[in-house]
């Protein structure tokens, strides 16, 4: 992995994790209410837009990354994001990490990596 590929990989990891955390912050705001009012509230707050911005930039980074590495490596990257978001969710949103949940998340991450590598 050369410098540019590593930078793109790290940028993708940070943008995906940051984007998902921003979406969670927007969606779990208890002041938002329900139904259409909830969407109006979320759209007036910064978090949902922060998430969308992360995803727009991530899209460009992802295309650049995939142009430099095989698709299987790209899918492998996706499996690392699952673990990063698990850890970030634990610290920022106090996600409970029971042994069953950790096992489930790790099985999904390994499965995604195997599907990618098995092409």
């Amino acid at each position, binding site marked *: 992995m050369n410098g540019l590929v590593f930078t793109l990989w790290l940028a993708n990891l940070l943008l995906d994790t940051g984007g998902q955390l921003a979406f969670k912050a927007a969606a779990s705001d208890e002041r938002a209410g329900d139904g259409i009012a909830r969407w109006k509230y979320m759209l007036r707050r910064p978090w949902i837009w922060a998430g969308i911005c992360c995803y727009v930039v991530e899209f460009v980074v992802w295309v650049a990354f995939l142009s430099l590495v095989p698709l299987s490596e790209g899918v492998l990257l996706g499996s690392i994001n699952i673990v990063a978001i698990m850890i970030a*969710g634990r610290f920022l949103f106090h996600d409970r990490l029971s042994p069953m949940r950790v096992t489930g998340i790790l099985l999904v991450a390994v499965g995604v990596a195997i599907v990618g590598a098995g092409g």
Partner: protein
Amino acid sequence: MKRFYVIGFALLLGFDTLNLVCFKLAGTHALPVEMSAAWLARVLSSPWIYGAIAGYIGAFVSWMSLLKHAPIGPAFAASHLEVVSVMALSYWVFNEPVTPTQVIGALAIVAGIVCLAFAEGDEGTGDVVPA
């Protein structure tokens, strides 16, 4: 809450799968790929691209609704079930090869999601890291 998750994740899976399959069909409709206005016009003239856009919007609304209650780590992992559904559809609809290794990966994803479903049943007990 259990029904909320089942319906929410089923909708997310449906919209994500619709999005990917429609993208593939729209791309095939617009061949050959070229960086030109003609190619973009061919993409936009395909009805499938609008299915892909509908899939994007539906998945976004489903995901934001799920995140109101769902813990982000397990939910993000569970959202990868689309890898399995798209693999199955690419085999049946597009006659793409699926390797035994990929089947093993798909089974691991399904097993992981079964674990997450069981974890929802006894939420809050036996934390690895106390919340």
